[in-house]
């Protein structure tokens, strides 16, 4: 169905080809998985299938690519539209119309299908993807998982014989990812559709694949074969494969079920070992927080309502402001102080791990009965949460459960409708950004948003200025976290993982005791993820409190001490990682599933126990 014959692609302005030596064929009705570390040209291969490479991107393609017998050299992407359906990494960039139903019909309209056929297929696809109740919804109001399903549906309606997907499940929660994958499975089985997809989260997809195409590294010869064979030597592999390699199983198991059937002996070997996972964080020394410079803040707020509020915030913080601020607070709203102080003491007495909040430094994050409204919808309903220094917390839950909203509330991007938020003793949305960055830092879902400058060096210099840190602070962090990046590199030319690390360094320049990350592993390969885990673990040891919103259960298992589960804006589970993920099968990491009822979370723990 898809045939690459000695294909190499060289983009304009580069000496080396982006991919070379591609020579394989994917027969009809197969699900082929394209894997490899970041930056080996996976997107290039996918683009070559529908002709966007080189018709749209430019560059030179040597060799020949044929899809359903059509040569992409003579057929433009639009002339392949009836055989190839493509969904890129970012579904939002894919939508042409404004409502779900029109979007599903758009491709068919372009192909000139008869109205009754279109109607039938739209209804069919709405049911297939569970979108029936969203049909009239404007696309702008959909959540990430819904968008991904609409994007897939919109290319399904013309009944393409080949489906090309770039990271279809990376942005989805485990349940939504399962949904999308089962749809793909059904297409392959029932309609004989050929699917080619690239995906970093192998634990989700590798067992669905009939064939794996591995691009081991830039410029290296691609490996094509059955998943179990390729996984033996692949530089990227899911935890279950890692466990299989550790235990020396052959052939390698790809599914939890296969691994379980072979795990008897391994479980026996592990019986005596201590499987108490993830020790509680050592009570780390709290990082110091500079005092709020309240008088300066006062000067900027000349309208009375706000002034009172900000004075109350300063007073409530109790971070030992200058004389002026205490006076202002005293003269200001007394009730506000009482309330804020009340919250802090309440937390101190009932607090989880660190009672650090009581006297010296305030807890990195104290959220009390927080309600946030977005339009008429309550995004968060009475959420309470305390994070102590050195603790790493994963916020989990389905797309749209309120994880990002909670992070936004902690950095003051959204105002609480009721309840309170304190980040290191400051009310985030009433604190000046300059002061706030030294208390709390957020790496957003799209790290590029944080980066403005033309070069890494300029970015670092700006970060030092913004944070009031000594010159070279940020650059030192970058060198530590991301060795070998030249000063003159443009942030846009970095890979996804490098960009994330640069953004992390920028945020860390101000040394915020509370560090927040929103979906940090989206688009990261396993190597980049391992590096990120290492950085974050070290930061936690230094006393930073880390909160990450993530769908990645393996990351949560590897890194976090505690999991907070959100559903519909409410906390539905909050406890040590092992307990929470063991109680929720959908969120359990692969190793846990394989070795249940023993309570192992990660391959690392197993390896240490066996050693």
């Amino acid at each position, binding site marked *: 169905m898809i045939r690459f014959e000695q294909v190499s692609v060289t983009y304009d302005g580069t000496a080396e080809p982006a991919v070379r030596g591609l020579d394989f064929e994917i027969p009809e009705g197969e699900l082929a998985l394209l894997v490899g570390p970041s930056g080996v040209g996976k997107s290039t291969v996918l683009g070559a299938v529908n*002709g*966007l490479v080189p018709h*749209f991107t430019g560059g030179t393609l040597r060799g020949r690519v044929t899809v359903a017998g059509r040569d992409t050299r003579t057929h433009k*992407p*639009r002339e*392949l*539209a009836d055989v*190839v*359906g493509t969904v*890129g990494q970012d579904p*939002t*960039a*894919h*939508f*042409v119309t*404004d409502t779900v*139903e*029109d979007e599903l*019909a*758009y491709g068919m*309209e*372009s*192909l*000139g299908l*008869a*109205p009754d056929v*279109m109607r039938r297929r739209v209804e069919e696809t*709405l049911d297939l993807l569970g979108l*029936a*109740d969203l*049909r*009239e*919804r*404007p696309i*702008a*109001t959909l*959540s990430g998982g819904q968008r991904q399903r609409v994007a897939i549906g919109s*290319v399904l309606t*013309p009944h393409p014989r080949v489906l090309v997907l770039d990271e279809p499940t990376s942005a989805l929660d485990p349940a939504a990812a399962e949904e999308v994958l089962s749809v793909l499975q059904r297409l392959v089985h029932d309609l004989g559709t050929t699917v080619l997809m690239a995906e970093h989260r192998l634990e989700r997809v590798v067992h669905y694949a009939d064939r794996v195409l591995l691009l081991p590294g830039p410029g290296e010869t691609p490996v094509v074969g059955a998943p179990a064979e390729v996984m033996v030597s692949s530089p990227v592999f899911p935890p279950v494969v890692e466990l299989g390699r550790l235990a020396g199983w052959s052939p390698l198991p790809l599914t939890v079920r296969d691994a379980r059937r072979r795990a008897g002996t391994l479980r026996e070997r592990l019986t005596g070992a201590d499987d108490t996972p993830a020790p509680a964080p050592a009570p780390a020394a709290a990082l110091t927080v500079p005092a709020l410079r309240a008088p300066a803040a006062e000067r900027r707020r000349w309208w009375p309502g706000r002034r009172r509020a900000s004075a109350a915030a300063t007073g409530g913080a109790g971070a030992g402001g200058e004389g002026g601020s205490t006076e202002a607070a005293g003269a200001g709203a007394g009730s506000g102080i009482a309330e804020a102080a009340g919250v802090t003491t309440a937390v101190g007495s009932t607090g989880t791990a660190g009672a650090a909040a009581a006297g010296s430094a305030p807890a990195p994050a104290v959220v009390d009965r927080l309600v946030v409204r977005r339009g008429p*919808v309550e*995004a968060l309903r009475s959420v309470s949460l305390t994070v102590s220094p050195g603790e790493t917390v994963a916020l989990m839950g389905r797309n*749209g459960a309120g994880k990002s909203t909670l992070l936004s509330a902690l*950095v003051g*991007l959204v105002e609480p409708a009721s309840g309170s938020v304190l980040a290191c003793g400051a009310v985030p949305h009433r604190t*000046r*950004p*300059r002061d*706030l*960055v030294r208390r709390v830092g*957020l790496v*957003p879902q799209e790290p590029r*948003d*944080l980066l*403005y400058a033309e070069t890494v060096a300029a970015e670092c210099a700006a970060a030092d200025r*913004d*944070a009031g840190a000594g010159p070279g602070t940020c650059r030192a962090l970058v060198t530590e976290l991301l060795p070998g990046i030249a000063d003159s590199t443009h942030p846009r030319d970095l890979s996804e993982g490098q960009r994330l690390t640069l953004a992390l360094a920028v*945020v860390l320049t*101000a040394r915020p005791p509370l560090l927040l990350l929103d979906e940090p592993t989206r688009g990261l390969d396993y190597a980049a993820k391992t590096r990120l885990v290492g950085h974050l673990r070290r930061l936690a040891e230094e006393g930073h409190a880390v909160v990450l919103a993530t769908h990645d259960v393996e990351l949560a298992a590897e890194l976090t001490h505690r999991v907070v589960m959100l559903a*519909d*804006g409410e906390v539905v589970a909050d406890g040590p990682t092992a307990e929470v993920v063991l109680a929720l099968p959908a969120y359990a990491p692969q190793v846990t599933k394989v070795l249940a009822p023993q309570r192992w979370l990660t391959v690392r723990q197993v390896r240490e126990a066996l050693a």
Partner: protein
Amino acid sequence: MTTPAVTAGRDAARARASALHPGAWWVWALALGVAASRTRNPLLLALLIGVSAYVVMACRTNAPWARSYGAFVKLGLLVLGIRLVFSLVFGTAIPGTLLLFRLPEVPLPDWARGIRLGGPVYLEEVLFSLYDGLRLATLLVCVGAANALANPSRLLKALPAALYEVGVAVVVAMTFAPHLIADVLRLRAARRLRGRPDRGVRGLLQVGLPVLEGALDRSVALAAAMDARGYGRTAAVPAAVRRTTAALTLGGLLGIAAGSYGLLSAVGGVYGLPLLLAGIVAALAGMWLGGRRTPRTRYRPERWGVRAWLVAGSGVAVAVLTVVAAAYDPAALDPPVTPPAAPVLPLWPAAAMLLGLLPAFLAPHVPEPTGKDRRP
């Protein structure tokens, strides 16, 4: 078994099936606008606004474009305000007798004679500009009503096939603006994360470049996606048809140009009209033929049914009756401001305007797009 999801889906399906042709709403709203342009009677204008507001409230959906009515009402108020301020500052040609107050007058040099800045303000002037401004505001509100009731992109879908690509460009541009705003908000939020002030003009300016960059990236990605989804596919058309299309379109345009010239100039009174008509026919034929080059079809086009006729007809009736009334009794529709008198509501034109309420009872009640409560 009927789960809520299924019912919701059915409701939505019914909503679309029974949605009125967007053209009907536009005809109705523009006809109300025509009626508004014929009168300066504030009571009649207020009645028109009331009629449009009632229909919008009764028939609008929960979609984003339906919220535009409020924006148009605000715009109308702004126009009214500007009109008033201008007349206060610059004065009007209306002779006044009843002095309200006197603004400080700015003496202007000789060459600017005829222009007045400040000076006495008379009641008549204020009344006249108030009525005039209200008329403009009513026009805007009527356009706003059309916007709120009819999905603008669906209207574009009703364009002839040859103009389809223009329509897509407009739709893409319209969805682009909200994206741009979302980008600005997101990047301003990101500034806050960097510890820079997120308010103020400077904050806005500094995100300008990244926003434009993002917009450019997105348009490139969208273009790629559209290409991959078959945008711009052309059907094989015989060369003869292609040539005929070109000839008809060009000839038609020439005919329209020459015909209009003939009509407007003194010499060509005879051949002007026929030439213009022939040109229009040729151009339309060219467009129709050109449409055959695009193999596109339309998904669930709105049908122009009985209800569409009635909705459009009710609007046209209001317009026609108002125009007739204006010819029959100009004083009632354009009440004189000298001497100032309380405006009277002319009974028959007012009754005619109430016809515009018909859509509120005719047009189907559209259930709100659902699904919101289930997956926020």
